[in-house]
């Protein structure tokens, strides 16, 4: 449904989101990863947060593009595999909670601290679950998102 270039860009976006997302926790300095030449920027919380925002926007563009493509055109020819459906739902949850994080960081918005905690924990939790699901799909033979629907036109 997409070009190889699109698929490659999507993978890089996910990798950068995972890296800069993990960098929001103070672990890269603690574990000397930021001491590796060229990786010092991973310990800069503001920089990694901005990169996370930028690639978050790219991811949202790509995710919505794919979703609309699938709904309007792809559904006639493909169906989501069970592994693909799980990952799509998790992507949705991660993106949704991420968007809430962006909203709560706006100057004009104040969520109460419990809501903030809920958003942060669910964002982190869904991201970790997505990571596990992606690893599972990868190591079980690169399970595809889509499979050809029986009796569907192609």
């Amino acid at each position, binding site marked *: 449904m997409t070009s190889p270039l699109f698929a490659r860009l999507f993978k890089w976006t996910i990798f950068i989101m995972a890296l800069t997302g993990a960098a*929001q926790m*103070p672990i890269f300095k603690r574990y000397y990863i930021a001491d590796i030449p060229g990786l010092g920027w991973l310990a800069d*919380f503001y920089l990694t947060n901005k990169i996370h*925002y930028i690639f978050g926007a790219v991811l949202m563009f790509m*995710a919505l*593009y794919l979703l609309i493509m699938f709904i309007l055109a792809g559904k006639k020819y493909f169906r989501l595999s069970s592994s693909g459906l799980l990952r799509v739902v998790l992507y949705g949850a991660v993106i949704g909670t991420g968007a809430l994080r962006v909203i709560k960081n706006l100057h004009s918005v104040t969520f109460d601290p419990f809501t903030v905690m809920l958003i942060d924990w669910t964002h982190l939790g869904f991201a970790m679950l997505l990571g596990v699901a992606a690893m599972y799909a990868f190591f079980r033979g690169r399970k595809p998102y889509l499979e050809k629907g029986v009796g569907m036109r192609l």
Partner: protein
Amino acid sequence: MTDKKNGISRRNFLKGLGVASGAMLLPAREVAAAAGKSDEELCTLLDLSKCIACGECVSACREVNEPKFPKPKKPYPEMYPTSRVKVEDWSDRQEVDDRLTPYNWLYIQSTEVEYQGETHEVNIPRRCLHCRNAPCANLCPWGAAGKQKNGIVRINDDVCLGGAKCRTVCPWHIPQRQTGVGLYLRLMPNLAGNGVMYKCDRCYNRIDEGKLPACIEACPENVQTIGPRSEILKKAHELAEKNNWFIYGEEENGGTNTVYLSPVPFELLNKAVEKGPGKPGLSPVEDSMADEEKLAYAVGIAPFAGIAAGVIKAGKFLASAAGGKDND
């Protein structure tokens, strides 16, 4: 930490006002106004021309907040890598009051400054400024730091893992860490976390009860006043204009809910005060979250752009598929 707890009801505030105003020189107008405008963030004004460094505010803060102070149990778990992760233990130095520590959320910076041919002795009560768009609350990955609707920025000591990111991203590096307490002990104490971060919580529990923060109530010189931010700023500008004074906190880091008024410029104070760990400066501070504020527009537009691109692409795809079928 619910809305109900965070909110300040007029009744509660006025109830507390009755008790407190009898006990001290209370800026009653501001507090009453705050009670009437509980939807607006509370802000404090510190008139540095009045502070005599008597330390009453420091003592009151320590006394009132003592139940919230860390009570670590030794020995502390080994934290890896040991060469990088250091124990920060203030439990044997709880009496330290010349800097911010987990046991001292407010201290007084004293300095002498020459300005316009006069020597000014200036004493500056220092604590968390309660930023309006606090980076500590925005960037905590664990949701342990948050800003209440009444403007108080708090760290939840039940949740904080002590990673100290809040201290790193705070322009004044205010929060202070105590090792050996908190949630990290029950998770992976050797591999993640390092205690709990502590800082001024503006006596949120006293405000919930309609009382004043301890430092304000205890001050014999009426250095601090508290009220809705708009009124505090109005008062600050009136005094600054009338006396040719200077304001700090109105614009710093996008605006804080602590506004200092000084008879000498803050550039001079910043140069004169002792700075270092637990000893914040007074330099101008840009809005730390300004770039994120701009990038949020991109995040907001991106999904709509994705939908539009998807509709166009799907349309083209369906048209070409239909064309192919016709050809068949």
